[in-house]
């Protein structure tokens, strides 16, 4: 039986080799897949090098600042860059929308910036043609164009009955056609598989890479089976083609849109402007860290005076303004973190709802599996934001500590009175050697693997379901 299956598969390939439509589709699919892998890999490698260079530049620029008041350095700020994970060259995930760089400064939590999508003009839409996008959205469409007539062609030409008379059961015929379709899918998937395997040389762990490849294989099996199923059920080529295109629109465009809309409706998330106003309102109640005499710091001042057993801030062994800056930054950060965590929790809740639609659309399932395994999903982005915030807080508080310990309150208070006074209210430039090369630590391989399991299960479930329906449809031929 297996030899008959392969004989049928070989003949289907022979048909495709002799059909100009099939040849064109296969060549386009292969070129698109190979080009997207190559171009995205080259672009991301270039960006990574650029970011590493910019990271060093940013550190050097900060460290080369002259003797200054520490609070000026708080506002001078510092850029933090995250190198994309190795598999990110195949699936940039949400990174291409969120960005991989953050400007760190005092009193503010900036969002990530320099996203590829934000830097693209309308003409560079091809920048979206990542290997993941090509495999998730375009490859199914190409498989449809290639295989919509895989069974209906036999039915329309009358060869289906003739094959039956030769002793070929419909299930064997379906298996043969399925092997041929899977071969075509595998061919188109090859550039992605090679690209994924090569990321191991760049430090990607084996388990996520293999699961990444396996997920795409299952996804291709799902679409091959869908093409077979609809082609088996349809009475003619035109019905099969229009049915498959409708299914593609539903699964790749409509359901993902419904998923994100449902998530937005079920978990209402305030917009940026609304959040910014809420944060500002809360911060205004806390007092201005730049003004040590702000009544909001009275209790703090009293405690500090009591702690050092002195009567006035002038008698403190440390610069009260610097201590207030430290206190203010800590309080402000707490508020900012509270809002940031709220927002992240809302994003997570929305993502959880949207991911449930992976049981309905294999495209949503592969998108989630792919991003999670590549380390370019929401969890990794939020992890980056948290790590960046930790760096920002430590960086600002180090400068605030210098502010508190590097000069007296008198020097600080009189800094605008003369040039000498201004010079006295500075700290040595050597103190700027405080920055370390930032190394983002993505989620461990095991964690990424386990996070992807639900999505992989969704893909397996869909594959099983479609294969079962195809089997039933095959028995009724």
């Amino acid at each position, binding site marked *: 039986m297996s030899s*008959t299956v392969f*004989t049928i598969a070989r003949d289907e390939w022979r048909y495709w080799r002799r059909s100009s439509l099939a040849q064109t589709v296969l060549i386009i699919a292969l070129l698109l897949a190979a080009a997207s892998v190559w171009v995205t890999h080259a672009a991301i490698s270039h960006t990574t090098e650029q970011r590493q260079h910019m990271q060093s530049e940013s550190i050097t620029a900060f460290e080369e600042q002259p003797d200054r008041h520490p609070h000026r350095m708080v506002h001078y700020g510092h850029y933090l860059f995250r190198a994309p994970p190795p598999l990110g060259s195949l699936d940039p995930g949400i990174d291409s929308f969120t960005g991989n760089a953050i400007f760190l400064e005092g009193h503010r939590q900036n969002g990530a910036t320099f996203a590829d999508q934000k830097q693209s003009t309308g003409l560079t839409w091809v920048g979206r043609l990542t290997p993941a996008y090509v495999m998730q959205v375009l490859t199914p469409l190409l498989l449809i164009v290639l295989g919509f007539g895989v069974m209906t062609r036999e039915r329309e*030409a*009358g060869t289906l*009955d*003739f094959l*039956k008379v*030769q*002793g070929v059961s419909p299930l064997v015929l379906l298996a043969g056609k399925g092997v041929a379709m899977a071969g075509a899918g595998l061919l188109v998937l090859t550039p992605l598989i090679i690209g994924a395997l090569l990321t191991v040389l760049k430090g990607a762990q084996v388990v996520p890479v293999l699961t990444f490849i396996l997920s795409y294989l299952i996804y291709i099996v799902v679409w091959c089976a869908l093409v077979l199923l609809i082609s088996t059920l349809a009475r003619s080529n035109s019905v099969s083609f229009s049915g498959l295109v409708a299914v593609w629109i539903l699964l790749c465009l409509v359901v993902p849109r419904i998923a994100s809309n449902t998530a937005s409706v079920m978990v209402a998330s305030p917009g940026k402007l609304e959040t910014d106003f809420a944060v500002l309102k809360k911060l205004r109640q806390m007092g201005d860290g730049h003004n040590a005499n702000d009544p909001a710091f009275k209790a703090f001042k009293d405690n500090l005076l009591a702690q050092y057993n002195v009567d006035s801030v002038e008698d403190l062994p440390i610069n009260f303004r610097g201590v207030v800056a430290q206190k203010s930054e800590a309080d402000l950060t707490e508020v900012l973190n509270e809002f940031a965590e709220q927002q992240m929790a809302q994003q997570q809740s929305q993502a959880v709802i949207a991911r449930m639609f992976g049981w309905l659309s294999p495209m949503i399932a592969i998108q989630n599996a792919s991003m999670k395994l590549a380390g370019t999903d929401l969890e990794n982005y939020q992890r980056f934001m948290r790590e960046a915030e930790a760096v920002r807080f430590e960086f600002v508080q180090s400068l605030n500590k210098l502010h508190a310990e590097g000069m007296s309150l008198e020097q600080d208070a009189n800094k605008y009175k003369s040039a000498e006074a201004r010079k006295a209210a500075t700290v040595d430039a050597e103190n700027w050697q405080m920055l370390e090369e930032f190394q983002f630590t993505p989620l461990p391989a095991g964690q990424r693997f386990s996070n992807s399991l639900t999505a992989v299960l969704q893909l397996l479930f869909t594959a099983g379901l479609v294969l079962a329906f195809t089997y039933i449809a095959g028995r009724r031929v």
Partner: protein
Amino acid sequence: MPDAVISASNLCVDVQTKKILKNVSFNANRGEVLALLGGNGAGKSTTIKTFLGLMKPTSGSVWLDGVDVQKAPDIVRQKVAYLPESVMLYGHLTAIENIQYFLSLSGKDKSETEIVAALQRVALQESAWRAALSGYSKGMRQKTAIALALLREAPILFLDEPTSGLDPVAIDEFNRLVSQLAAQGATILMVTHDVYGACHVANRIGLLRDGEIVGMFDAPEQGNIDSEAVHKAFTQGVVA
């Protein structure tokens, strides 16, 4: 279980509400050529499709070499070669490739030499052997299908309008082939509306009208069935 190689017993086939075959019964023994003669819509092709397991009887049964077709269609199909009315071969393949492909599916591997010999036997011109079937005339396709049927070496042959599209020389050659195969022990059921062709090769002719066998003509021990009598019965509904 009937002794005949091809046997239909009280066969009725309905398609939706329409009765296509009504209590059709006939037998064909080994080495016999049975022709079912009838006009358009008489139920000829339905009869063959029921024997091939492509259509299910509403009642009654069809047997091939002692096996009930409905119970074991895969077994009986191994013994059968089928020549459809409109040839169902692949347009993207050449004659040789088509034959190789269908033979390999039925588990019979033949060398190219044997395939070429069969194509010569059906008088398909050599220039066409390696050309895609999409450029063939109906007659050339028919010859390719006949070559395939010959190479299958099946003991039972079903021929649906086999000479349709063939030129007179090819028809003569085909009739000669059918007689030869029958002489070698093949049992053949042929459906046609070609009265004279049927009388020339068949041992028996069943006249099918509106899904019923309305007459049966046997060949004399020497010679062919009287074509005039069959023609009269066929055209005027008069059965002797």
